């Protein structure tokens, strides 16, 4: 068979693998580089959580679970959301256990978006939102966040984007790649704009545990907002459990029911071993989360100070584990900057335009690496920009 083009769906073909494929190919060849590129915690999953997964296997818990996830885990999710963020959800019907936060995002979009519907996506943000919307036949509408506004979605920008076709707003805070957060007092004005529309909020709160200096506040906590918000959470970032693929969706009963239906056909149920480990993580993981947050916070301050000392203009992030310094002063584009930095100094960072056009002129640095590597990468980055 020569050429599969006729066999490939138009939607699949329309997805770009990544606008910066060439850069990633380079990165792949240089596994020995100091990588500040991967957005992943550098801690292993705590042993007591891993042990719970192992114990569930020893007991022979190897079968499918209920579609929505084991009831004990959903109950624990409800207690966790109440305890940490003051949000109450009914474990029977308002909570769904998914294969990572990514599946929850996909389910929410597929359950709510009709072909041609617009989904508003503040950018720079996580790379998957646009493709997930496009696969559902929706139209991704990027909203460009600016450094001047602290990379926050402003009520006026939101209001101007509310066309009759706008169906869903993705709210990606704390934000990958900018590290921006929305504070409690940022939320009422956004909620006010949303209240005058019929739009649903898909609040991606996968980094909710990683905020520095203040507790994360969810838009679902605003009056009247819980009824029109699906909150996506998960254990990848909060409990260093990326490989376990444990995500959660919290939302109105009717929406969760539709999402569960799709989940049931596409996935059946989230991995059983991971669900039992997740139970321990939520029940007995707060201390670990606290110490990990403290450790990231130290490295955040260290790296921010180092970058500023090296001459970068850098917004102070209050969430996630990324810094998003501007490279505009150096007169080259993000991709060229990252490529040259990698080739000449063997340090990998991600070009800002990977996260949307409005990310051009920035680079993403993940500081979830050892202080030793941060120290060395700062030396190399400084050496690099001096010769530009």
């Amino acid at each position, binding site marked *: 068979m020569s050429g599969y083009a006729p066999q490939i769906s138009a939607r699949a073909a329309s997805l770009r693998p990544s606008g910066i494929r060439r850069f*990633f190919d380079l*990165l792949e060849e240089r596994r020995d580089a100091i990588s500040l590129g*991967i957005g992943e915690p550098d801690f292993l999953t705590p042993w007591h959580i891993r042990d719970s997964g192992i114990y569930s296997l020893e007991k022979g818990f190897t079968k499918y679970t209920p579609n929505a996830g084991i009831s004990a885990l959903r109950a624990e999710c409800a207690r966790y959301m109440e305890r940490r963020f003051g949000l109450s959800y009914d474990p029977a019907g308002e909570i769904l256990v998914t294969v990572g936060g990514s599946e929850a995002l996909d389910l929410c979009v597929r359950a709510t978006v009709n072909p041609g519907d617009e989904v508003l996506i503040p950018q720079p943000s996580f*790379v998957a939102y646009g493709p997930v919307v496009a696969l559902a036949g929706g139209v991704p509408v990027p909203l460009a966040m600016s450094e001047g506004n602290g990379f926050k979605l402003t009520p006026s920008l939101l209001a101007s984007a509310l066309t009759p076709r706008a169906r869903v707003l993705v709210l990606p805070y704390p934000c990958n790649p900018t590290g921006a957060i929305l504070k409690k007092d940022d939320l009422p004005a956004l909620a006010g704009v949303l209240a005058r529309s019929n739009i649903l909020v898909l609040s991606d709160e996968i980094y909710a545990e990683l905020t520095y200096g203040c507790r994360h506040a969810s838009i679902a906590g605003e009056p009247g907002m819980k009824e029109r918000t699906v909150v996506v959470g998960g254990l990848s970032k909060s409990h260093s459990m990326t490989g376990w693929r444990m995500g959660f969706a919290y939302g109105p009963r009717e929406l969760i029911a539709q999402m569960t239906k799709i989940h049931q056909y596409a996935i059946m149920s989230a991995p059983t071993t991971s669900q039992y480990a997740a139970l321990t993580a939520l029940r007995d993981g707060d201390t670990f989360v606290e110490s990990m947050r403290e450790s990231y*916070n*130290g490295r955040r*301050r260290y790296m921010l100070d*180092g970058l500023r000392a090296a001459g970068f203009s850098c917004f102070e992030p209050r969430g996630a584990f990324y810094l998003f310094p501007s490279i505009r002063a150096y007169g080259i584009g993000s991709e060229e900057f990252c490529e040259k930095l990698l080739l000449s100094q063997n340090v990998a960072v*991600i070009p800002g335009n990977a996260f949307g056009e409005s990310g051009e002129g920035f680079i993403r640095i993940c500081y979830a690496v050892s202080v*030793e590597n941060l120290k060395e990468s700062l030396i190399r980055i400084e050496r690099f920009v001096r010769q530009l």
Partner: protein
Amino acid sequence: MKRVLKLLENDASLGAGQIALLLGVGEADVERDIAAARREGILLGSRSVINWEKAGGDYVTAMIEVRVTPQRGEGFDRVAERIYQFDEVESLYLMSGGYDLQAVVIGKSLKDVARFVAEKLSTLEQVTGTCTHFLLKKYKEGGVVYARPDDAQERVAYL
């Protein structure tokens, strides 16, 4: 001070400036804390963690249970002092349970350690008995894992 000590405990190579940044406090405060900790005998020193097995060092380590007769007025302290002053003794602990003192002894060979026990340790008049266990493999020490398996997980390359 405790937060400074916690960081130093994990990485003694951190300078006061780096610690200050990591903790979000002033560098002068960190320097003051470190000086005070040294003065008060809290911060006793800093050493590197070396895997001598990999570096090709020829050593044997033994854990020795020591039974002793405590002395009036001095308890175990006097005999402990007599034991830990030997260079061969790397660590010494007073224990509860089946024996009194636990000595960690490092020597060049089994013979070397055996000679130390026979000639120096057992001959102390307060020592009533010893039991020597040789260390075969070090898995973890001082919070550092030594025998980590080499196989690493394959991971996502980016994003």
